């Protein structure tokens, strides 16, 4: 058994032992606030067992292991529906950026440790009402205010902001230069005066994203994490931190086996639907697609193990998996006919086709829309040109609104 296999086995056993306390069944019926409290205990348990900050330096409270161990643990963890999602953004992007770009090391270490233990949560304040994909077009501004800065504007789609203690934010500090050049990166205290968080209810019934308003929010200059005007580079560094994360060829929807079971148990024209060619074709095509993604992931893992850099094809995962899941979920609902109307707000999108279907659009938009991902593949991998951009090279305040 390789070291990694041994690591996987040990992690899987530990996770298994956590199911009765922190698994989906154990948390059924809890309010979000109650669930978050349990989630904080789970995060603390991970920290105590050495499964928090797996690939982070030990000096920050991490385990000092590699990326492979991290992906391996995450892949195992994903099988159980643990409440790790409250900390996903926090530990995925803001905290690593803080470690890399934060100036006051004593402060940084304290924050990292509290975040690892689940005591504090950080959010990422990037998207705005005027633009998500067009990050550099953001309008929230920070103006010099004495020795510090004063922030005014609005962010949106901020995950878990209503429960967050801190956030990292990109704002415009100079509207007189082209859009990428006038941005600066800061951290902010989410409890500071002038910060207002308003949850947004999504189609699936939950409200994990928020609008965040900034009204004369004053911060000192030691909150700054980039040179003035150098914020875009740090924002991009944020997005590049985890190039290979744990993936799911089911697009975070139900496993294909569940569709096969449904097709076996459902009658179509007096026969089991599994005998219907239209259904069989969808099963076959989806299987081939998913096995391709799994093979891409397996190859990336093998390459990392061999000390090589995985190819760019890993970027296909989200694009291909989530939109296929959306269509398959539609078919699964179709298949149930008039029995397909039932809806449960609290059902898991990994187990319930209706929940998978109604939440699929979120998956296709959040963290890079299909269209943005296609642009990235076309431009970064295939060398195709950027779209025509009328705002290119134009000072931000002269871009036609």
């Amino acid at each position, binding site marked *: 058994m390789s070291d990694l296999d041994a690591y996987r086995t040990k992690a899987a056993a530990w996770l298994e032992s956590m199911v009765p306390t922190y698994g989906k069944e154990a948390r059924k019926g809890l309010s979000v606030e109650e669930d978050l409290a349990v989630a904080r205990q789970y995060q603390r348990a991970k920290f105590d067992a050495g499964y928090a900050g797996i690939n982070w330096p030990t000096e920050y409270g991490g385990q000092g292991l590699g990326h492979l161990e991290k992906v391996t643990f995450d892949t195992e963890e994903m099988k159980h529906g643990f409440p790790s999602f409250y900390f996903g953004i926090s530990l995925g992007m803001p905290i690593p950026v803080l470690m890399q770009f934060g100036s006051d090391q004593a402060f940084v270490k304290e924050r990292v440790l509290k975040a690892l233990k689940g005591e504090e949560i950080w959010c990422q304040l990037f998207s705005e009402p005027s633009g998500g994909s067009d990050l550099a077009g953001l309008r929230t501004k920070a103006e010099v205010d004495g020795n510090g800065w004063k922030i005014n504007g609005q962010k949106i789609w901020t995950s878990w902001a209503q429960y967050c203690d801190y956030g990292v934010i990109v704002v415009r500090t100079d509207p007189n230069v082209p859009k990428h050049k006038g941005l600066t990166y800061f951290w902010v205290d989410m409890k500071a005066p002038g910060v207002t968080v308003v949850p947004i209810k999504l189609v699936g019934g939950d409200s994990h994203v928020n609008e965040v308003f900034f009204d004369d929010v004053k911060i000192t200059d030691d909150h700054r994490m980039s040179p003035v005007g150098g914020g875009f580079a740090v924002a991009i560094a944020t997005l590049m931190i985890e190039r290979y994360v744990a993936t799911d060829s089911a697009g975070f929807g139900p496993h294909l086996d569940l569709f096969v079971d449904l097709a076996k148990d459902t009658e179509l024209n007096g026969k089991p639907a599994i005998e219907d060619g239209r259904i069989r074709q969808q099963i*076959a*095509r989806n299987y*081939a697609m998913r096995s*391709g993604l799994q093979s891409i992931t397996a190859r990336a893992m093998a390459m990392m193990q061999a000390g090589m850099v995985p190819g760019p094809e890993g970027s296909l995962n989200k694009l291909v998996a989530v939109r296929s899941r959306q269509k398959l979920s539609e078919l699964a609902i179709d298949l149930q006919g008039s029995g397909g109307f039932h809806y449960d707000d609290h059902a898991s999108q990994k187990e319930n086709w209706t929940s998978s279907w109604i939440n699929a659009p979120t998956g296709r938009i959040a963290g890079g829309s299909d269209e943005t991902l296609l642009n990235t593949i076309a431009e970064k991998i295939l060398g*195709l040109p950027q779209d025509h951009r009328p705002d290119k090279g134009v000072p931000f305040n002269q871009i036609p609104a």
Partner: protein
Amino acid sequence: MSILYDEGQQAIATESRRVLEARVNKDELLPLLEVTGQYHDGFWNTAKEQGWTALALPEAYGGLDLGLVELGLIAHQAGRSLSGAPFLTGSFGAAKAIELYGSDEQKAKYLPGLASGETIGAVAFASGSSALPVLPSVTVTDHQLNGTKTGVAGGLAADVAVVYANGPGMPALVVADLSKVTRNAIDSFDNSRLYADLVFDATPVETLVVGGAARDAALHILALQAVITAHEQTGGAEAMMEIARDYAVTRRAFGQVIGAFQSIKHRIAELYGFVELARANCIHAASREGQADFITAAAAARISATEAYDSASRDCVQIHGGMGVTWELGLHLHTRRARSLAIEQGNLLFWEDILVDRLTGEAA
């Protein structure tokens, strides 16, 4: 088996690409479309000279003892460069059937010739719309074969064929010497595949397997060939994707290169997805030979590779506009090959059924 190519395998990929790009070009392939019975000598001579015919066969019979991974790499390049003859897959399938199910005498008789390329092999399993019929249309009695096999790839030039026959009353896999068999040439949309209807008339045959095992054997051979063909399809799809990309970054319209329009660039990015999924499935399938899930992996590779090649040839032509449909530009060589390879070794419908049967536990 590892899913990462080692140095030797990477060298096979590099060398086959160098050789084929130097020796095969569209100007030699285009005329082959307009006649029946002709293939690209240069391609087949290269295959023999480079040892590709021997690659995946046992050393004891003149082979090189390598496997699906290596032959797959050759096939990938053959797909990129448009192989000029169907024998690499046909001979491989015939040889594997004899190697796996034949007697020592049969192996000694056929394998050295197939390994050197002196003998050309073909596989004749299909009957009309069925890739692997329940009761094949040709019948064996007293070691003699009677009946017609339709649409055999390489059938116009093959010396020997492994035939899936009615044995009688049960399936049988037999080897037929084709020297005295009537071959009716099919005038096809992809003539260098040398498609023929083979008319057997008291043709003497040697039996490899009879009974239920014959069907399993035939499916296994088909799956081995399907993995090779899937590599070839992926290579063809990759070539079409790259041709589309190269055109999109040079051709200008409305004051910019057309690759800057999302309708074009997204189309090509989607092709990248098809190609990489097919490649990943091919690599996986080639590494699963001999494992319980081999047929499933082969089916997945075949399905995604067929989707990739059809999609890439369709969209590449579309992106070229009017030029795409000219005879001279030759994109239709790929369009045609995408369809001919889609049918050889069982079409999408066949492999989808095989796959779903395995997934639902319906397969024996």
